């Protein structure tokens, strides 16, 4: 590695003819001049060697903080950094060798930066520099410090003194988005007086596609680079609240100025660095936890997610760390506001609003307050539909403007109401993994069963913190030991079950739907109900229909859909396909949830017609436990079979 070559590096003594004592004096003078004007490369080399030795003696390359800054993770082969951008490392072996990287970084600090101080190693990797400086007590005379003006100006412009974790909740009618997303906002003041202008850090996959199977696969397997971006909060509020209709929850952390500065220094280092994005493990939320640990090393958060990191769970661990979260604020989405508005309006106002969306110039004869409400509702509705691409692009803008112009002429204050903050925020809902003990009776057989599910939420689980009517069941395994043959059986393996019961009204024309893939033990053999000869069938199913809310708080939902099912594993060896209607009701009453569903499917081949009833009641004394009783009845050729079960469910 080339060490700085500064001019006037050699103090030269004058030639022979000068008298002795003056020669000595001159030597000293020149040597001092040499020191003042520049250092001998050998002095740099010495100090560098000294620092390298100190670092080795103190094993700084094995320090957890060094590993945090370089994003090293233990692998079965040793150690590897998750950063994939080559320029992140000073050593060619830096990605796998913390010691080599430390040495190369120290060497880099000595490079002459005077031509472009902001591009010096010290400034580009300022967090490393600051940490090594405190560890090794750099002598500014022997290791000149670069001013790093660009970095300090950037920090001053961000003006961030408080850190807030932002959680973006799910889209309406898209249960998979329930997993959520997290960002970090750097607030200027404690009271949060101008949050829209605060800068927000976001880690996301850089993709070219926005949908499709390639997108899903690449997202799951690290096929996309993930990178950080810094944007004013208003950009994110617009994206999440307005365009995507996702509620935002703001969790203020009690980080102090020093901790924030450490994070900022590291953000400066990684702002152009790519990390492969893995939807399950190394996603936005996991990266955010790692960043928080750079700010406060005593936090041990990311290690709690060795296999997968669900964003809502990462916020959960923050709230469980005593004193870490100092306040929680709620920022409802446009869709949420409109939903409340429609609910609170009188019917007449809603009627007028609807017809205004079709004909904005229509005359309205209402009192000014009511007229204002109708106009505001009509605008909100058009804007909502516009963002979903459901309006006519040639006329929607003119229509929206007409409504706003009419509204501006009314001397009436803003008629909108802020939706009340839900009692339970997403971080305080039930934990996403579940284990359950079951006692059941299948026909005449007693069984004891065990259930396990890593994620996420079903329609009987305590609904606080989750969207009403949305459910995802993932890798749910259900097994039981049966008294009939003293054997363990697989009752059900649900690979995936997604349900979206989205209450539909004139303003929210949502389609409810369901789809899934599972293997289930059914009391059917040769197409006939035969309780004693049950076995496992593989099923793929999908359903679509409508849901209506029967009360004003969406506690009581009723729904009807058409379901199609494809079943393999039949005794005949041939798969069978079924189609038919289903109807159901789901009612939340404080700590109780009641549900009933019936469906009749007409199958091909042997199975003919099969009717299935499901009824269940769930009581949750708190968000950690549920007691559930359920009955499944199968009616078909050959008779009826009932399966009654009682479970104790624990969320963890």
């Amino acid at each position, binding site marked *: 590695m080339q060490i700085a070559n500064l001019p006037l590096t050699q103090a030269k003594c004058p030639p022979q003819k000068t008298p002795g004592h003056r020669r000595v004096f001159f030597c000293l003078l020149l040597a001092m001049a040499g020191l003042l004007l520049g250092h001998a490369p050998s002095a740099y080399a010495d100090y560098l060697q000294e620092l390298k030795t100190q670092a080795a003696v103190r094993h700084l390359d094995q320090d957890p903080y060094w590993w945090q800054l370089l994003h090293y993770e233990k692998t079965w082969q040793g150690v590897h950094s998750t950063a994939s951008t080559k320029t992140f490392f000073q050593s060619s072996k830096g990605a796998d060798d913390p010691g080599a990287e430390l040495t190369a970084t120290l060497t880099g600090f000595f490079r002459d930066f005077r031509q472009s101080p902001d591009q010096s190693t010290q400034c580009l990797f300022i967090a490393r520099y600051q940490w090594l400086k405190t560890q090794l007590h750099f002598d500014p005379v022997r290791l000149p410090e670069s001013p790093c003006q660009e970095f300090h100006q*950037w920090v001053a*412009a*961000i003006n961030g003194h408080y850190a807030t974790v932002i959680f973006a909740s799910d889209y309406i009618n*898209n249960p*998979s*988005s329930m*997993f959520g*997303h997290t960002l970090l906002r750097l607030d200027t003041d404690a009271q949060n007086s101008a949050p*829209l*202008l605060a*800068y927000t850090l976001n880690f*996301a*996959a*850089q*993709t070219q596609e*926005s*949908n499709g*199977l390639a*997108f*899903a696969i*690449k997202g*799951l397997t690290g096929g*996309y680079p993930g*990178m*950080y*971006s*810094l*944007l*004013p909060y*208003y*950009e994110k509020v*617009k*994206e999440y609240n*307005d*365009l*995507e209709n996702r509620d935002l929850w703001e969790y203020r952390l009690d980080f102090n100025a020093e901790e924030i500065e450490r994070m900022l220094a590291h953000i400066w280092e990684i702002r*152009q660095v790519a990390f492969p*994005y893995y*939807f399950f493990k190394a*996603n936005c939320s996991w990266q955010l936890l790692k960043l928080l640990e750079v700010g406060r090393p005593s936090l041990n958060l990311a290690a709690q997610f060795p296999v997968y990191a669900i964003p809502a769970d990462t916020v959960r661990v923050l709230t469980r760390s005593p004193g870490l979260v100092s306040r929680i604020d709620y920022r409802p989405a446009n869709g949420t506001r409109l939903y409340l508005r429609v609910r609170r309006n009188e019917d007449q106002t809603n009627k007028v609003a609807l017809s205004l969306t079709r004909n904005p110039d229509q005359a309205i004869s209402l009192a000014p307050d009511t007229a*204002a409400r109708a106009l*505001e509702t009509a*605008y909100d509705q058009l*804007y909502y539909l*516009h963002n*979903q*691409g459901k309006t006519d692009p040639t006329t929607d*803008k*003119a229509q*929206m*403007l007409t409504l*706003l*112009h009419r*509204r*501006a002429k009314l001397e009436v*204050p*803003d*008629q*909108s109401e802020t939706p009340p903050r839900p009692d339970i925020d997403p971080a305080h809902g039930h934990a996403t993994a579940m284990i359950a003990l079951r006692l059941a009776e299948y026909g005449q057989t007693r069984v004891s069963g065990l259930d396990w599910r890593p994620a996420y939420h079903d329609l009987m689980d305590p609904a606080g913190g989750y969207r009403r009517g949305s459910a995802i069941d993932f890798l749910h395994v259900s097994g039981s030991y049966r008294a009939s043959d003293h054997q363990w059986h697989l009752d059900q393996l649900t690979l995936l079950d*997604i349900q979206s019961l989205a209450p539909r009204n004139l303003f929210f024309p949502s389609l409810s739907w369901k789809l899934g893939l599972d293997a289930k033990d059914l009391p059917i053999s040769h197409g006939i109900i035969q309780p004693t000869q049950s076995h496992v069938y593989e099923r793929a199913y999908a359903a679509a229909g409508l849901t209506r809310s029967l009360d004003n708080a969406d506690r009581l939902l009723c729904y009807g859909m058409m379901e199609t099912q494809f079943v393999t594993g039949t005794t005949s060896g041939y798969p069978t396909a079924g189609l038919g209607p289903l109807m159901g009701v789901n009612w939340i009453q404080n700590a109780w949830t009641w549900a009933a569903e019936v469906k009749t499917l007409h199958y091909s081949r042997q199975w003919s017609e099969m009717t299935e009833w499901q009824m269940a009641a769930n009581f949750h004394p708190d968000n950690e436990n549920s007691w559930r009783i359920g009955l499944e009845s199968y009616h078909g050729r050959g008779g009826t079979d009932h399966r009654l079960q009682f479970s104790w469910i624990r969320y963890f």
Partner: protein
Amino acid sequence: MKKLPFAVALLGGLLSGMASADSDTGCGLGTMIWAGQSGVIPKILAVTTNGTSGNQTFGITTGTLGCSPNGVVTSKAKLGMFTGSNLDRLAKEMSVGQGETLNTLADLMQIPATEKSHFFALSKTHYDQIFSSDNRSAGQVLGALQGVMRADSELAAYAG
């Protein structure tokens, strides 16, 4: 890039020449109202990455490069960037005379707290002038707003 027929290109040139005299479309001021955001249609599989499409630099996306080096908006660009990004919200909030975004706009224009309610009322009264057509850019809206403010004795000082 597609090669337009000569006539169309000529017509395009004529029209753009005839457009508003305000040619400052940098740093967000060229954003149109209700422009939306591309690539943000929720689909089942799309949520696996919460991704951003295209090549995004550390700062804001295309069209505003140079206005926010390293992600931080330059003070000169702040008002334009904010207005450009929040045009939809500002249109809505000005029509009702209040709102968080409108309040933040007032802050950016350095309107003191005592003058804010006057600012909200004034922009609502002159709404037709400020949002005169659905084809307005943020620069035009901001220009019209500042014009309204200049004509008002109390707010003229903040019209920029």
